[in-house]
């Protein structure tokens, strides 16, 4: 039951993150909301694994913790350089 209540709490926090992603007037608000949502996903996957009695879900949480970071850095690199390839030297 503890894990169920904690999972519901994490889902409420995810709802707030989604509202911020919908509302956020600037683009950086949305990027921050997606980053926060990714961290909540990792926590919720771990809690759901314990709730269902199968801690093997931790592998998925491990993969996702890294994928989230890489995709956020790729998004920010795009916004900085307007290009996703190698960073061009602006001459």
């Amino acid at each position, binding site marked *: 039951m503890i894990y169920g209540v904690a999972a519901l709490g994490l889902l409420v926090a*995810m709802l707030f993150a989604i509202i911020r992603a919908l509302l956020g007037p600037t683009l950086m608000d949305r990027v921050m909301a997606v980053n926060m949502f990714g961290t909540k996903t990792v926590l919720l996957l771990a809690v759901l694994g314990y709730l269902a009695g199968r801690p093997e879900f931790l592998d998925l949480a491990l993969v996702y913790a890294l994928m989230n970071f890489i995709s956020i850095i790729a998004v920010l690199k795009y916004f900085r350089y307007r290009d996703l390839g190698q960073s061009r030297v602006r001459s």
Partner: protein
Amino acid sequence: MSVGEWEALINVVLLGLLLVVTFGIIRLRNLFGVVMLAGIYSLLMAMVFTLLDAVDVAFTEAAVGAGVSTILSLGTLALIDSRREKIPFRFQFTPMLVALVTGAVLLWGMQDMPAVGTADAPNQVHVAPYYIERTPVEIDVPNIVTAVLASYRGFDTLGEVTVIFTAGIGVMMLLSSMPVIGARRRRRRNGDDQENDT
């Protein structure tokens, strides 16, 4: 509450969050915001898949949907005018009617199917025991899912691999930043040369 009831409640809440995100994707004007919301949608689907005990599908959904697909969409947005917004929304009656009728017919046709996981459904009685009994005899690999994918349903896998490979080639050619293939870079370089000449 038992574990099954908690899982059902969390499933319902996750589907509700999917509805909120879908509403946001439809109504949002800015294309970058839509790409971010699509990433959130893929994350929610990955969690629904883990609740349905399909961890490998959740792996694929999280890695592809929230990682690669977001980056590819941003690469596509880099090729077009970055200030462009979506075309304005006009309400059309006929497509909505077709969608509603198709959905209603599908829901009505679903009533005849057996419930999820019942023991006397046709696939549990005929198909699954065949795979379980014949795999150690004919194929002798420890994972039955691998045997089904690679041997019993091999043509299906061949078709899927062809589709994914073709899509990958198409995306690479569109988004390539290599100067030999990328047309936009070639145009820009030719344009710069012309500017330097005059």
